[in-house]
């Protein structure tokens, strides 16, 4: 008995030891002068959590507003509900999956086509086909709508043209007449983030300057003012993001003119140049010319087209290798188009920062941040990250949208901007908890 008691003492002593952990004084959380109790996120695909060329559950769950909201809980944040795709439809619109590498190291992506949330495709007269998705009806804190431009926020029929917006609205396709801005401000909120405006430049750029137009600068300025006035109508505080330099994303930096030319020259050393159809100095007309490193080829350009025979009035000529058979406009954001896009983005950002300053809002300067990432990369908790396609860790397989790790980094940048402006202290997200591209 005496021995038993002795053993118990020893065991108790050991347990005591194993519970004597050090405790580090951590910083105190607080909301500062902001109120995060009802936070809403306004924006486009980046806000929705779009990734790998589609909107799907995993991306939604790792959207930067969702990550921010999770961190805000410790600084007085409330519940945050997203219009998630339900079970059996978790692959949403479908997305790209990395399924392997070719012998030359280039990636093979395959579309995911099972468990989609697509309910139909409706042709809309004078617009085209609109893909419809399973409806969501419930609370919404994340109003991110893929494809949304600032230009469209007061456009009443938008719900009939954008399937991602349509799924959030009550009522049937074809009958919608709620402008986006009215929809997001219908319910009260205390704090907002707004990262709209990217698509006003990006959709022009990603179509090689051929499939879309840049939103007029004055229109952008007017609508941004309207938007922020509405968002701050009841004195709400918030954070806005500037528009990244479109040339900082891997969609435009992965397939380069130099690399294509080098590939061709391996087989045909006499080839001197790649030809593109480029915007002239008048800013209107296009004419063929030899491509330079300042012309950006889009990620989805099928490089196998290069050199394939094309019949022309001058005979059959190889695609992309003569002035008579230039690479089509939609595959190239040429130097003049780049300059034009950058000029517009710069103007949009001037508007965003000016309006934010006027309203006392926090600003996440995504333009500067992303350019720094492109120039210098990032090193976070032992992980090297940069703006490269796949290997960089930040951008998803579409080369435009982010990986969960990329979105977590963005969430932290938004949080830092909020804390700096409102004196709040929201804990930062752990970047290591979020993945980059998935490899097979």
């Amino acid at each position, binding site marked *: 008995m005496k021995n038993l008691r002795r053993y118990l003492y020893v065991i108790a002593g050991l347990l005591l030891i194993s519970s004597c952990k050090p405790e580090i004084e951590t910083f105190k959380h607080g909301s500062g002068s902001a109120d995060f109790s009802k936070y809403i996120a306004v924006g486009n695909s980046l806000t929705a959590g779009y990734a790998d060329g589609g909107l799907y559950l995993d991306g939604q769950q790792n959207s930067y507003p969702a990550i921010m909201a999770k961190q805000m809980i410790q600084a007085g944040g409330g519940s945050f509900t997203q219009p998630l795709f339900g079970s059996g439809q978790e692959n949403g619109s479908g997305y790209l999956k990395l399924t392997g590498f070719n012998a030359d190291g280039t990636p093979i992506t395959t579309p995911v086509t099972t468990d989609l949330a697509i309910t139909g495709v409706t042709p809309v007269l004078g617009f085209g086909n609109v893909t419809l998705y399973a409806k969501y009806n419930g609370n919404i804190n994340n109003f991110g709508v893929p494809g949304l431009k600032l230009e469209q926020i007061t456009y009443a029929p938008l719900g009939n043209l954008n399937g991602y917006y349509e799924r959030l609205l009550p009522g049937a396709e074809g009958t919608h007449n709620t402008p986006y801005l009215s929809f997001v401000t219908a319910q009260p909120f205390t704090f907002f983030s707004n990262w709209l405006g990217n698509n006003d430049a990006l959709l022009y750029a990603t179509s090689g300057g051929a499939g879309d137009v840049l939103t007029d600068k004055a229109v952008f300025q007017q609508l941004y003012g309207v938007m922020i006035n509405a968002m701050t109508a009841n004195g709400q505080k918030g954070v806005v993001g500037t528009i990244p330099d479109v040339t900082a994303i891997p969609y435009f930096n992965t397939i380069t003119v130099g690399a294509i030319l080098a590939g061709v020259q391996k087989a045909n050393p006499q080839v001197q140049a790649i030809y593109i159809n480029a915007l002239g100095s008048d800013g209107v007309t296009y004419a063929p010319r030899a491509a330079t490193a300042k012309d950006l080829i889009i990620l989805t350009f099928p490089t196998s087209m290069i050199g394939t025979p094309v019949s022309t009035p001058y005979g059959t000529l190889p695609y992309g290798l003569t002035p008579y058979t230039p690479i089509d406009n939609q595959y190239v954001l040429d130097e003049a188009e780049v300059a034009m896009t950058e000029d517009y983005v710069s103007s949009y950002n001037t508007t965003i920062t000016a309006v934010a300053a006027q309203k006392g809002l926090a600003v996440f300067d995504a333009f500067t941040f992303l350019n720094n990432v492109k120039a210098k990369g990032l090193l976070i*908790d032992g992980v090297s990250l940069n703006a490269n396609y796949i290997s960089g860790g930040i951008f998803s397989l579409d080369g435009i949208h982010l990986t969960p790790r990329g979105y977590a980094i963005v969430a932290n940048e938004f949080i830092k901007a909020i804390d700096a402006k409102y004196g709040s202290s929201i804990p930062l997200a752990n970047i*290591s908890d979020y993945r980059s591209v998935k490899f097979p």
Partner: protein
Amino acid sequence: MRKILLLALAIAPVLSFAQGFQVNLEGQKQIGMGHTGVGQAQDGAAVFFNPGAVAMLPQNYVQAGISPLFYKSDFNPSGTNVQDYNANKVATPFEGYAVWGPKDARWKVSLGVYTPFGGLTDWGNSWAGKYSLESLDLKAIYVQPTLSVRITNFLSIGAGFVYNHGSVDLTQALPLSNSAGQDGQAELKGSGHGLGWNAGIYLKASDKLTIGFVHRSQVTTTINNGDAIFTVPASLQSSFPQPNTFNATIPLPATNAIGFGFYPNKQWTIAFDANLVGWNVYKNLAFDYKTNTPELQDTNEPRNYKNAVALRAGAQYKCKDNLALRFGGGYATTAVNDGYVTPEAPDANRVYFTLGAGYAICKHLDADLSFEYEHLMARTQTNTYSNLSGTFETNVYIPGISLAYHW
């Protein structure tokens, strides 16, 4: 045509394992007195503490002890209230000594086996620093045959040859997600050996004062053909070829020490030690992989350690002929410069306190108990190599027990 997307992953598993992690647990009597012993001839542990003192031991010894070590580290990533703790794992530093010489001879031969360096940490695979380290199990076992000679009645010298068997098993997450979204992992596992020596001078200045000087040499330990195991998604396996091996060399630093023993009366012994540990030899840590690929390059990470100082003091009170009570403590400066602290054993200046008790079970057999509490000061750091940023704080609890047979 599309040879454009070279998968230049910026991933080089830079692993580092010899932190400022010296295990000062080489004898229960000495631990009880603040791990002093350079200037005393207490028992067989003198083989480690001062080979010179061995020849002054009045008896022959066979003894062994163990000091289970509970290492409690906490990491608080900057800007968060997260507390990442390392898992409860118990390291087992041990020591054993055998000392023999003919009665009244001027010499003694001895053998020591002890563990002066080591580390056992397991941070798990979900903490903020997982890409720096998941777990580490590092052991160094020194074997030291020794010869000691009493030159005069007040001066003796001794020297031992040191053979080190070192082993390491280290894991680190790799930021390469598989299709299930799980990280890859690098594991470096191997063993090697190194050689060195330990020599000391012991001076019996008077009945009331003894003095010791000792030099424990650097033991450069080389691991050849350790296993380099990379668990990565199948499509990336060719970048991390398997099987693969690595070589690495770690200099385990030299210690210069001076110690004093004071004997004011029959009951009391008071001791002071000062150690200078030559960590500045640890400039960098290089890993040489047998098979390199563009993604898996050899690495050479700067360490830039600085020399560390430890000051120790302790006392023993003999309350009865067969019972001694001991206490002590000390302060040790860190070997790791700002910006180089890593999670292997997040080093900082440390303060420690010890307690001990010795009981003579019978004429020839002693049992000794010791307890040590060590506190590594909170240290807020951004590592220059990984940018891992946050505050480390560590408590160490070390109970210990030994038995010594002497005749």
